[in-house]
């Protein structure tokens, strides 16, 4: 009897199969859909259950139905994520992408990318989605071609730059769509995090919980140079981005840090919509328990409760990853 079955159609498969014989799904790679969620149009209104017209407005109460991007969720068991529009923004300009490489029963790598569209640019949501798709695809290709996580991370960042640059209108370079970028590659060799901008990664491991990334902002640079948080905040534009991904940005290598393989913990990758409310690793760890899906959902809910002033994206990866479905984990 085959111990493996296709996660999509449930048909049995052999352990050495690369694709499902009945539906053609790759058995060695599961990833979130390119281009973000292709949510089907709602037919009934979320607010009054009236009929929704072709333009997405309720025929009874006029309410615009939430766009698929307003709330995005995925759960691959070993990794899960939530991205929410929040309570103040008109649209969700965060994006996330994730891939699990290798057979479902024994994943070889988990790749996570989170991008936060820079609000002052137009089509920031498109920039973020384009960047996560490009970075994820490139990192997965590199890993499958045998490159190490560090190289794959650097290449992924370059791919995001190339793709986002193409979105810029030659006539308005100062409005070039831009975003931040944070990626994480978890393999047997440990966890590798790369970033540009102020989206963050945290390592949650009880008393050893810590923030892995340092924001590309003047504020973070001043704090790193020894100023107190208060002194750094006094600077004008302290929280403005010093680096980002976009046609008007200086291309450069991402910052890269690692977590060694002998440390168990939970990796959380997030946008500033979360850490604005829960800035320290301890405050995040205090609210992170259970399956990755639950961690992502709980942290998102906490940020919404505390104000939800920005788009919130949270992806959680327990490490080392054990193959498990989160179904029985609720």
């Amino acid at each position, binding site marked *: 009897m085959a111990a493996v079955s296709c996660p999509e159609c449930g048909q049995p498969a052999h352990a050495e199969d690369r694709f499902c014989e009945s539906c053609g799904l790759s058995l060695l790679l599961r990833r979130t859909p390119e281009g973000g969620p292709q949510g089907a149009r709602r037919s009934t209104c979320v607010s009054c259950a009236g009929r929704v017209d072709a*333009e997405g407005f309720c025929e009874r109460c006029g*309410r615009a139905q939430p766009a698929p991007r307003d709330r995005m969720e995925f759960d691959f068991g070993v990794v899960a994520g939530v991205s929410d529009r929040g309570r103040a923004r008109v649209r969700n300009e965060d994006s996330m992408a994730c891939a699990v490489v290798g057979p479902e029963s024994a994943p070889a790598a988990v790749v996570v990318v989170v991008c936060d569209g820079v609000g002052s640019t137009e089509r920031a949501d498109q920039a973020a989605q384009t960047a996560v798709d490009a970075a994820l695809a490139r990192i997965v290709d590199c890993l499958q071609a045998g490159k190490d996580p560090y190289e794959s991370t650097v290449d992924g960042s370059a791919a995001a730059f190339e793709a986002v640059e193409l979105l810029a209108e030659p006539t308005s370079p100062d409005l070039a769509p831009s975003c931040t970028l944070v990626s994480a590659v978890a393999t047997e060799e440990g966890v590798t995090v790369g970033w540009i901008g102020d989206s963050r990664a945290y390592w949650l491991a009880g008393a050893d919980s810590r923030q892995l990334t340092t924001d590309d902002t003047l504020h973070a640079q001043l704090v790193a140079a020894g100023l107190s948080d208060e002194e750094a905040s006094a600077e004008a534009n302290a929280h403005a981005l010093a680096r980002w991904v976009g046609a008007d940005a200086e291309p450069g290598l991402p910052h890269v840090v690692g977590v060694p393989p002998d440390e168990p913990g939970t990796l959380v990758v997030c946008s500033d919509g979360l850490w604005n409310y829960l800035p320290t690793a301890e405050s995040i760890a205090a609210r992170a328990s259970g399956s990755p899906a639950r961690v992502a959902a709980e942290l998102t809910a906490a940020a919404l409760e505390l104000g939800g002033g920005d788009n919130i994206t949270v992806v959680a990866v327990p490490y080392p990853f054990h193959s498990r479905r989160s179904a029985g984990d609720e």
Partner: protein
Amino acid sequence: MSDFEVEVYQNEYLPQGAAEVNAVVTVTSRGGGAPAGDTPAAEVLIVDCSGSMDHPRTKLAAAKRATGAAIDTLRDGVAFAVIAGTDNAELVYPPRLGMVPADAASRAEAKQAVQRLRADRGTAMGEWLLLAKDVFATQAGALRHAILLTDGKNVHERAHKLDRILGEVAGQFVCDCRGVGTDWEVRELRKIADALLGSVGIVAEAEDLEADFREMTAAAMGKEVADVALRVWTPQGATVKFVKQVEPSLLDLTARREESAPRSGDYPTGAWGSESRDYHVCVRVPPAAVGEKMLAARVSLVATGTGEVLGKGQVLAVWTDDTALSTKISPEVAHYTGQAELAAVIEEGLEAQRKGQIETATAKLGRAVALANSSGHEDTAKLLAKVVDVVDPVRGTVRLRRQVSAVDAMTLESRSQVTKRVGKGSGEAGGEH
């Protein structure tokens, strides 16, 4: 059928808890399929023949000439009729109830019948309009336009009777009203013109009548679509606060709503040629949470006869706590809100002046000068300058004049509702709909 385009100008962003959504809807009709002339048209000319038309005698003579000029301006084939108005109404042409297509022979006959008119007896405009309605009723499916010419007040008819009659004839035809001399009341004619979706004008000098009649008739001949309604759909829990035509003149249509479907009402706009008009729509909606977006109203143009939708637009509401977004006022909405205030302060200022309330009149007319100046409404500014001495046009400092000619005051009053088109920053926005 003409080609209609609907554009909506608004700031859809509202601060938290806000419940009022304002939008300016620009409707542009471009003569499309049918060249003007294919649509059957009907014209009724109503001439005041009360006794005062003989003082001075030139008044009636000018009115006859003007009516003749209007008859000459009619396109061949347009059905027409002439009514003489006194304390009742009499059909001057054709001899029996009905209308006759314009051609060389019928024009000549009509002009002869007009020449024979005598001035006598009183004034009861409601009766004139009722006869016009019966005459138009003989022409189904045509563009119906009337011109009403008077020189006096409606003294032989009680106001509530006129109101009742206006309710009866509204929507049956469009009527432009003209006052000759200075013995008529602007407010009275405005009531008739507003009810019948027409204009009010003063013809101070009888000899100017002819050109004015010619112009009105020509404009009427340029119409292509007879009856068009502005249909406003609002979601459950929302109410229409007002719908006003704000350009080319102010006309409050709010009370003229006719329910057309659940949550949907039709406001009459009359006949359309190749032209553009602006409407200010204000809707009250139940406020939603920050970040929510809703359709506050759907605005469409509907041909009343066929129910065909000629164009449509959306009025949106998005709640945000970003004050940079929600505090912006749409320049179009601001402009027409100012124009409405300008019209109101002119009316109130002239009323106060008539009653001898010097302070109120000075304050109101001063505000009018400032508004006319800031909105670039030069025509109104010139008319105001004939009624008050302007000390500082920017601040609106004025002095009332001891002597104001009745013509100047009435001209200002009858033109007060005429608005100036907003200079749209976005230019020709929107595309085909």
